[in-house]
């Protein structure tokens, strides 16, 4: 017989309750990058807006950075870590795929025995994780979820590639998502364009090392991208996605306080702001200048810094959009914690 199954019972809405970040202690200036490439500080700044980035040391693992960021997010949310029912980690730079690093992080933050898994959505990863968390909370599979974006992109950086050597940074950003009585995370506009998957990619599969004892001729895998194609897509296609996220949330640009795009490159951010025609009063996250591009970690890291420095405040309305490898993207409007 087909038995009657009880429906799960979730919260009517979800919201971000707390955010935390971890930036590695070592700050790397453009002078250090210039030891390996023929370029200049002026060129790097004019093409990317990046002056410094943080690169992780041996102790600053994906797990360690995640635990540090999560601890701050949990404290800011004011919950007991044992209340967390789901841990979602977005990363492309944790090199041991099994088990999911989310399980170790969940244990180390004191979350007990939550559902824990990793996702791979590149620079869109934070938005993907946030959307999953919201879904779990509204559907009833979790009351509180921890979403982490974490990268050690210095491990996937070709120091001799003058187009990307200066671009990437390391770090972790985390948010606690929980139940709410009012909508505080809007509809997500997300998707992927697999026909453009070659535009941002890892140069080689790890398979290149299989069965080899001499790897002296193998160039270690790194992230590479087609700069102009990515710039065009990121600015002009993503501006449409950002606008759609505003429209679907029923929020006018005039009502917006903060814009937190993925911190890919200052030129993309500037051009996107122009294309979107955002009003002057909107605070724009420009964390890329001192953090570099940290992929899935960039949005929560930028959010944390805006709140910590008083450039944004709790209750502000923010448009967030992540975009990158895939080419995958996710945009939504949120109320800041």
């Amino acid at each position, binding site marked *: 017989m087909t038995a009657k199954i009880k429906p799960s019972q979730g919260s009517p809405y979800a919201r971000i309750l707390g955010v935390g970040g971890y930036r590695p202690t070592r700050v790397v200036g453009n002078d250090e990058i210039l030891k390996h490439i023929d370029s200049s500080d002026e060129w790097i700044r004019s*093409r990317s807006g990046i002056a410094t980035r943080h690169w992780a040391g041996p102790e600053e693992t994906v797990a360690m950075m995640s635990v540090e960021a999560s601890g701050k997010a949990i404290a800011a949310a004011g919950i007991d870590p044992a209340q967390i029912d789901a841990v979602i980690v977005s990363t492309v730079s944790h090199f041991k795929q099994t088990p999911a690093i989310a399980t170790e992080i969940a244990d180390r933050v004191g979350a007990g025995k939550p559902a824990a898994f990793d996702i791979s959505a590149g620079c869109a990863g934070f938005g993907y994780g946030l959307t999953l968390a919201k879904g779990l909370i509204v559907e009833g599979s979790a009351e509180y979820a921890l979403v982490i974006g974490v990268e050690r992109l210095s491990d996937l950086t070709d120091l001799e590639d003058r187009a990307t050597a200066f671009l990437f940074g390391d770090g972790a950003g985390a948010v606690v998502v929980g139940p709410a009585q009012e909508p505080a995370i809007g509809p997500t506009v997300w998707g992927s364009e697999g026909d453009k998957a070659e535009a941002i990619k890892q140069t080689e599969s790890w398979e290149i090392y299989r069965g080899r004892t001499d790897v002296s001729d193998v160039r270690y895998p790194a992230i590479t991208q087609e700069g102009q*194609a990515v*710039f*065009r897509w990121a600015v002009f296609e993503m501006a449409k996605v950002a606008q759609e996220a505003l429209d679907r949330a029923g929020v006018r640009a005039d009502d917006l306080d903060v814009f937190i795009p993925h911190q890919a490159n200052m030129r993309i951010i500037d051009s996107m702001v122009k294309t979107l025609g955002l009003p002057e009063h909107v605070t724009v996250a420009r964390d890329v200048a001192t953090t570099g591009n940290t992929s899935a970690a960039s949005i929560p890291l930028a959010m944390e810094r805006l709140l910590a420095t008083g450039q944004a405040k709790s209750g502000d309305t923010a448009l967030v959009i992540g975009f990158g490898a895939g080419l995958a993207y996710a945009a939504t409007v949120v109320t800041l914690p």
Partner: protein
Amino acid sequence: MAATEAEITEGLAEIVNEIAGIPTEDVKSEKSFTDDLDVDSLSMVEVVVAAEERFDVKIPDDDVKNLKTVGDAVSYILKHQD
């Protein structure tokens, strides 16, 4: 109606002025976008997208790298516009 060569040159001059701040009278056929007009590879994408909208033409990424001078862009648009 398709734009003439003179109209395209004038339109491109206005676009380059808007994006790179170069006086329109300096945007001449033989000028190189990167070497003479302060249009780097990323600004070039902005120029291309603005030109696409203005002249109702598609300029794929693979073709952008062949547009070295203002004259290259004018010829491309003349040939590909509807």
